[in-house]
């Protein structure tokens, strides 16, 4: 995938990223195969945008996010990051020590606000930890900085000495956001950051993320399974199926004019909050293919209602079929598919 943009406008450029997990069996735990969680992904992220990454459980969206962050080591591929101080760096080649220099500029917010905060640490220590590790501040300056961060995410600095258990899910997620913001990062990977929250609280956190993006000129990679939330927050959306990108486009283009049959099925399945629009879902026969033993050709072909002979034999490549709209389907140019409006 090549962006028609200058290198200056990009923040992240990922080429042919792969992450395989070995499957070990038997007494000697010999490797007998691999789960191809991420199987050759190309994508780029522009500065200041929100890229949504969607797909169903097990499609590899979380693994993609974590591999890009180098929380997991990639099996193959290139992860180029445009660091404000170091310029373009290849994250996949960096050692742990070298990564420390880049990490302040890339942070992650996790799904579960209950397990991602250490219950034995006070709010102050949780939010201050990145600042302490990177020796950014200490003493009174550190306290002031933590207080500022808490105010930024809409929490009162007086809560600094409390422990996470004293807060609700939404407040804890705010703490996670404060921690991610501590080092003034460029890129934040939000991995199902609002999925565990009730709808009214979800709206508060989504608005906060939008405000912070403007205020601090942040770039988000927003990983989620909830397509309505992603439509709301993302500028562009990438759809994954069994470790591969099947479609990537501007949000409206993808939702109203999907070109991949899987994206069409996702849009049709989405329960719309409107009783006057009850569409029947597109039935996808069978189950999601196994990433340990994917089918031949296009991974989606056994479930695709448009599949032809070619689809079982040849693996489609991600192609740009119109400006900024990438699809990986042999038939993409010939199909008329239903968007979210049915």
């Amino acid at each position, binding site marked *: 995938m090549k962006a028609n943009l200058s290198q200056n406008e990009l923040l992240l450029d990922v080429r042919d990223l792969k992450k395989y997990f070995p499957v070990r069996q038997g007494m000697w735990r010999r490797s007998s195969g691999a789960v191809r969680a991420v199987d050759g992904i190309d994508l780029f992220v522009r500065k200041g945008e929100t890229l949504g990454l969607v797909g169903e459980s097990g499609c590899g969206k979380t693994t993609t996010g974590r591999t890009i962050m180098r929380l997991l080591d990639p099996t193959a591929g290139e992860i180029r990051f445009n660091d404000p101080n170091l310029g373009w760096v290849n994250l996949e080649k960096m050692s742990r020590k070298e990564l420390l220099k880049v990490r302040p500029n890339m942070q992650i917010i996790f799904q579960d606000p209950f397990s991602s905060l250490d219950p034995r640490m006070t709010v102050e220590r949780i939010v201050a930890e990145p600042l302490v590790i990177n020796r950014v501040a200490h003493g009174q300056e550190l306290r002031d900085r933590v207080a500022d961060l808490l105010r930024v995410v809409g929490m009162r600095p007086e809560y600094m000495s409390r422990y996470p258990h004293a807060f609700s899910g939404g407040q804890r997620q705010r703490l996670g956001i404060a921690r991610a913001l501590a080092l003034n990062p460029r890129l934040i990977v939000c991995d199902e950051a609002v999925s565990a929250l009730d709808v*009214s609280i*979800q709206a508060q956190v*989504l608005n906060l993320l939008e405000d912070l993006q403007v205020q601090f000129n942040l770039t988000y990679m927003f990983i989620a399974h909830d*397509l309505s939330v992603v439509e709301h927050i993302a500028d562009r959306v990438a759809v994954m199926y069994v470790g591969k990108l099947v479609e990537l486009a501007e949000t409206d283009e993808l939702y109203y004019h999907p070109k991949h049959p899987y994206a069409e099925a996702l849009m049709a399945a989405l*329960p719309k909050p*409107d*009783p*006057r629009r009850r569409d029947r879902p597109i039935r996808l026969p069978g189950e*999601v293919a196994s990433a340990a033993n994917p089918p031949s050709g296009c991974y989606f072909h056994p479930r695709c209602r448009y599949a032809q002979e070619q689809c079982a034999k040849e693996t489609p490549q991600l192609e740009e079929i119109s400006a900024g709209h990438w699809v990986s389907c042999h038939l993409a140019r010939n199909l008329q598919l239903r968007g979210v409006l049915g």
Partner: protein
Amino acid sequence: MSEQAASPVSDRDVILQIRNLHTYFFTDLGISRALNGVSLDVPAGKVMGVVGESGCGKSVTALSILRLVPKPGRIVRGEIALRRVYSQDDASEMITEVKLTDLNPQGREIRSIRGGEIAMIFQEPMTSLNPSYTVGDQIAETILLHQKVDKAGAEERAVKILDQVGMPNPSTVVKRYPHELSGGMRQRAMVAMALSCTPSILIADEPTTALDVTTEAQILDLMRELQAQLGMTILYITHNLGVVAQMCDTVAVMYLGRVVELATVDALFYDPRHPYTRALLHSIPHVGSRTKARLEPIRGVVPDPYTTVAGCPFHPRCDMIKPGLCDVRVPASGAVDDQHQVRCFLYSDQEEAAREG
């Protein structure tokens, strides 16, 4: 034998009548008033949605109906009546009523109702299926418990019912253990188990929340189809307003242990009345609306369940609050028009009859 004399009543459109139900949990931290006066008429043969955020009492309502409220919780007050319609020889109908709240929760009668007349589907299919028995054995167990068939007959019926819920290869699936099935197939098995004794009421508590969207759509489609086919009543509990719009005929919106609005599904989405319902609808992204309007979150948080809020429980978060009224008195539920019942002082001055708690 019935533990309670069944009494004839007239209203046959309501299959389940809940009146002023209070279910409290007596914990070390204090009393949690999970249900604080729930009144609800569940219409027969329809799908009624129960929607609300975590802690509003929607699941406790379901557990109270089945008399499965776990300790230290108990039904403190109120009434749940199940109505049965029988056809008599002279083609007239007789309607009887069983007060579920009067039954012994371990007694014979409630046990015959659970899984028989009223079946339930839970959220997480992996934890509600027993991992050490095959799917077929578990469905057959329910059938044997409630119907007069032998083991072979029950197994045969298990295969048939799995086929009915669209399970591929039902005759091999009956021999499978739950871990061998995917999430969607497990939930199909749960639906099959719930339907195995042709219940008149199906309580579905977030049955698709753990599923992926394409699988969810299939299960919803299946439940709608079966509902139309069998004419059963479904009480559908969910926090997802999209699912409510797709599934339900009428909807009850709950907040802090009370029903605050009851309306037809169309009226609820196109003409919501209660400030909480309106706020909920404004706080969710409306997919396909082509507007990138900012979400309007509800300010504040749901108060913790151990505190009691004076007046209307929603008043601390409400934008329409009438000071001196909403923060002092509790509004009663009243009909606004033939499509809405709302519990709010914007529509009526009617106050809830004060009762000693």
